[in-house]
């Protein structure tokens, strides 16, 4: 899985639309499964599945009618019931689309993207509007697809989603890729953080930022040794570091730092 992340208006959806073959690239070239997705749409489309950020279905069709319509347009669809079961919508098959919740509509959209047994799957914010349980289920489904060998291009606002699922990712800002690599490659460029609340009036052995609440944050590229030094110092001086929290940089921090740098 490749995840495309970015600030709002960075151009993620436009980029994905070019890759999906919805629009022609202004310059350069795009290849999906070895073909030009715009000019050779007929060759590429039967092998890919797309879940748009905003896709729609006629509100007066039922879930199974909408899925059957979609299946009818495909070269080699999987059974409609199977696709609906994959996204936990089988029990809603007879319900009109307009009566579905936002999260259920997202899952219907995902079911349609999976109907054609795609080799390449485009997911544009697939879990937006899903409750935490459905999101976990969707993640499990995506993991299962990845194990089957499906290639996934994901765009998402949820950084933990990219962190949990993606093999590689890129961060976009104002139409340009500003960072890319595996999750750890992107994250490792950013310092880890140690934060705690020290007793008042004590001089710390490390450089730290102090918040108004009294909590201090230490940034370090060597989490283990810095933390060790701090703990030894605290032990030695009998200092209590309350609310101690030490963590490696997360994708979220990397992302925020990149957005800030670039701004």
């Amino acid at each position: 899985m490749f995840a495309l992340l970015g600030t709002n208006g960075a151009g993620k959806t436009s980029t994905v639309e070019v890759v999906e073959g919805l629009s022609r690239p202004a310059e350069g070239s795009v290849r999906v499964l070895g073909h030009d997705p715009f000019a050779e749409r007929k060759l590429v489309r039967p092998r890919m599945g797309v879940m748009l950020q905003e896709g729609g279905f006629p509100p007066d069709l039922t879930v199974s009618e909408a899925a059957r319509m979609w299946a009818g347009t495909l070269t080699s669809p999987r059974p409609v019931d199977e696709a609906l079961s994959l996204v936990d919508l089988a029990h809603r098959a007879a319900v009109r689309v307009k009566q579905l919740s936002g999260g259920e509509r997202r899952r219907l959209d995902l079911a349609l993207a999976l109907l054609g047994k795609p080799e390449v799957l485009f997911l544009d914010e697939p879990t937006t509007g899903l409750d935490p349980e459905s999101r976990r289920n969707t993640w499990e489904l995506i993991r299962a697809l990845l194990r089957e060998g499906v290639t996934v291009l994901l765009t998402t606002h949820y950084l933990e989603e990219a962190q949990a699922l993606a093999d590689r990712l890129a961060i976009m800002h104002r139409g340009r890729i500003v960072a890319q690599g595996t999750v750890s490659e992107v994250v490792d460029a950013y310092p880890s953080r140690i934060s705690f609340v020290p007793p008042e009036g004590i001089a710390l052995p490390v450089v730290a930022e102090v918040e108004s609440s009294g909590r201090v944050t230490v940034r370090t590229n060597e989490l283990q040794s810095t933390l060790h030094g701090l703990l030894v110092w605290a032990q030695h001086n009998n200092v209590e570091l309350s609310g101690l929290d030490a963590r490696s940089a997360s994708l979220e921090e990397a992302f925020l730092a990149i957005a800030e740098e670039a701004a």
Partner: protein
Amino acid sequence: MKAVAVGQAELKLFWRNRTALFNSLLLPLLLAPVLYSVDADGVPLVVGLIGFALLMAVYYNLVTTFVARREELVLKRLRVGELTDPEILAGAALPSVVVALGQMVLYTVVVGVITGVALPTRPWFLLLGVLGGVAVFVLLAAASSAFTRTVEMAQVTSLPVLMACMLGSGLIFPLSVLPEVLASVLEYLPLTPVLELLRAGWVDGPVLKPLIVLAVWIVLGTYAVQRWFRWDPRR
């Protein structure tokens, strides 16, 4: 044809849409007396009813259908599937066209039997008129939908074509009552050549000019759709 799957879904939606049912199925029946008062003779009545079916069941219905599917993001969704653009439009248009064709056959047979219309002597012109008319009004509907923001607005944006065709193509009153200059201009409206071809199925009349005018409208309509049709809602 994969587009048929879209057509089947559209047909279901058509039966669930009361406005569309009324416009397509009942309105022409209400208009029959009006047409009858214009010309009680059998052939003009048949031609007039076919003209109305083209305007209401094909054109007006499809303007609203295209706008509704665009605003519901259905067209956008279909566009990332396997269907080509013309297949999507054809699929969406299919039920309206089928319903319109069914009506035309029904009216022709019923009116024909009641008023004793003879079988068309040149049925191929009739067929050309119907097929050409369907093509033109499907294309015009797609083009009009591009200038229509909401389904409600379709009542307004479809008026120019509807009014021009109803008043200017001899449906409500015969063109012969108009000054000759005006009448000759109105020959270039999209519905006029269709009606002339339909008439030519029974009675001798000009066919070459209507065929050319109709062909030009089909070309213009195709160009307009390629140029302006919107697959996404306006932002």
